[in-house]
């Protein structure tokens, strides 16, 4: 099997499992719905104040669901004792990483689309012309989150207190992505064109490239033994 096909096989397996069990997706959708309540209650109903913090809150929602979703990346293998099976996959192990990353990315984007929809309805955001730019920022930001998240999930999968350790490791490393996405989203929602936040987009691009390349190079080391 070629490298790409092996990566696809892993992604396909994960998506098929998820499609049939809907274990993660159902809970995540419910969780993001609950987040909406939490934000509303903690921020109060004041529309103007809400509008000012909305980009940050939106990304907070994305990050919180990402922490839950990405942290579970290798849980299927662990819970069903398939870890060795995964390790037995022939050839370069980074194909497994790519497959897992693709699966995570797909899952995250579905959840994020939903959260964004809920925000539009409940917080009355006018996406309007911001949507194409926002899609670019969300895509790049999510890739950054998922790239490091998938790597760290593999690292914390077999560690004590992994539910705790995963966010503690991921959040500090993801601060650049968080800053870039929130600031870019803020500007876009104010009606500025994507070009006005070009430096943030470039930073996200650089971050994505760095994260994916490092993860590909080091994933072999993480999966050893």
């Amino acid at each position: 099997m070629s490298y790409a096909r092996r990566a696809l096989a892993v992604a396909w397996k994960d998506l098929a499992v998820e499609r049939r069990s809907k274990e993660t997706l159902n809970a995540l959708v419910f969780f993001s719905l609950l987040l909406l309540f939490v934000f509303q209650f903690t921020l109060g109903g004041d529309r103007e104040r809400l509008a000012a913090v909305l980009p940050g809150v939106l990304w907070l929602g994305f990050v919180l669901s990402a922490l839950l979703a990405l942290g579970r990346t290798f849980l299927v293998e662990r819970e069903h004792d398939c870890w060795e099976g995964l390790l037995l996959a022939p050839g370069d192990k980074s194909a497994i990483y790519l497959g897992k990353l693709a699966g995570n990315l797909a899952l995250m984007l579905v959840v994020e689309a939903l959260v964004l929809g809920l925000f539009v309805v409940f917080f009355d955001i006018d996406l309007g012309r911001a949507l194409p730019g926002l899609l670019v920022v969300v895509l790049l930001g999510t890739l950054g989150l998922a790239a490091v998240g998938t790597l760290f999930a593999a690292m914390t999968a077999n560690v004590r207190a992994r539910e705790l350790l995963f966010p503690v490791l991921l959040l500090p490393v993801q601060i650049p992505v968080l800053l870039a996405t929130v600031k870019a989203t803020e500007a876009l929602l104010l009606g500025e064109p994507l070009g006005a936040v070009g430096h943030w987009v470039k930073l996200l691009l650089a971050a994505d490239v760095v994260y994916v390349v490092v993860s590909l190079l080091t994933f072999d080391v993480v999966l050893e033994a």
Partner: protein
Amino acid sequence: MVKTLGWLTAAALAAGLVMAFGVAPREVTQGNVQRIMYVHVPLILASYVAFVVLAVASLVYLVRRDPAADGVAHASGEVGVMFVGLGIATGSIWGKPTWGTWWTWDARLTSVAILFVMYLGYLLLRGTIDDPERAARYCAVLGIVAALDIPLVHFSVYWWRTLHQPPSLMKPGGFTGSSSILWPLLVNLLAFILLYVYFVARRARLLRAQAEAIA
């Protein structure tokens, strides 16, 4: 060898104290409080050295699988986090009387704070893995990811802070090239880098003894 280094460090620290209190002039506007710079700046710079060494040692470990490299990375992480923590603390103590606040989300302060939590996570990961070989591998990966993240953190925080709000009071005075301030600073910097090397040497030796005792 390590012992000699220890005495050398002690001598350098003593010389640094003498320079900071005796040779360096009293700052005109800030007064004696400004002398904390001779501890604050060396601490932060020495911690940067620690994190660079950590990254290089992590890379060496992944290539060679030499436990000694992991020991250096481990010890550098501990000393680096301690130095950054102390650097932030001394900065706060300096900031309160001069800027009027313990903390402000200025670009440089924020970058250093992110560094602090990032490497605190590194130590946390080390603490939760029992198998030393696996701990070494995972921490090496994290060490490399963290090191590559530093430029991203730097730029993002810089843009975050400066595009919308110019740096305000953030220029503590009296730094511009006067040798009466520069020399005490350099002596202290040397002293703290020696201290870092001494700590790492001691800690790495202890870690090695620990590994041998377990094996």
